[in-house]
């Protein structure tokens, strides 16, 4: 299992809001595929999948605020 976490986005950015999921639970994804779009005040940021596999858990819903380092999704390789 691989955790997809919200990476460091820059100095002073502690959190971001989930804009939307590019994928659903149980979807297959390739390494590097965008899986979720996050938004800060003036930027959107797509978080890629670190591995190829199947999305097993989606931890946050659209509109939720996520802290840097939090797990967004869990992927089974």
């Amino acid at each position, binding site marked *: 299992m691989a955790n997809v976490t919200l990476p*460091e*986005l*820059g*100095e*002073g*950015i502690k959190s971001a809001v989930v*804009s939307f999921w590019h994928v659903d639970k149980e979807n297959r994804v390739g390494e*590097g595929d*965008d899986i979720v*779009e996050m*938004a*800060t*005040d*003036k*930027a*959107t*940021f*797509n978080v*890629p999948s670190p591995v190829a596999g199947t999305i097993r858990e989606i931890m946050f819903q659209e509109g939720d605020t996520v802290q840097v380092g939090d797990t967004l999704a869990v992927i089974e390789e």
Partner: protein
Amino acid sequence: MTEAARQKELFNIIDAGMIEYSKAYGLQRELVWKRKLGLIRDTIILAEHKPVFTIGRRGSKSNLLVREGWLKDRGLELVRTDRGGDITFHGPGQLVLYPVIDLAGFEKDLHLYIRNLEGVIIGFLLSYGVSSMRISGATGVWIESDTKIGSIGIGVTRWVTYHGLSVNVNTPLEYYDMINSCGLESCKMTSLSSVLENYVNILEAKERLIQSFFEIFKRYGTTISSMDKKEAHLL
């Protein structure tokens, strides 16, 4: 990478001219994909758009002060788009710069990138002798504390950027009466020609904007490569 080595790597520049917002967006997505795969160098697209209102991820129609039908009757488009930020306007006389660059070659920092784009606008305006400023907590470039001249909204995927900045050069400002710019009721918009009380040569303005971009990003431009000529031709 040393600074000298970095400066040898040149940007591609695409002057897309007057182009529909949706076409420019399609071009950006294509270039982002190519940049991610390493097929092209960092590329900047320079454009003007026909009148269009766009709403970013943080925006809502509540900051549109006229009805959508009213816009449609006048041939004005309203587009929801995947950049950060709220509602804004693009139109003739406004220069838009869409850098498609891999921030891994700079710094992986969204705020730093946004501050640098502000710096591009500030340097551009200064080349006309016009002073402008950043305001903490209110992204964009301001002539006075309530008067904005340049806007920023970006998108990033795998640290490759799209969307970018806009700066009003000869923009007809009456369009801004139709929105709360950037979602702020107190925000007035101005243009370089209003500040200078003189029409500004747009071709020269394009060159100055590119030059300011280079100064900020510490790189130097080049002529359009053969690949970009083909892309530009397909627009």
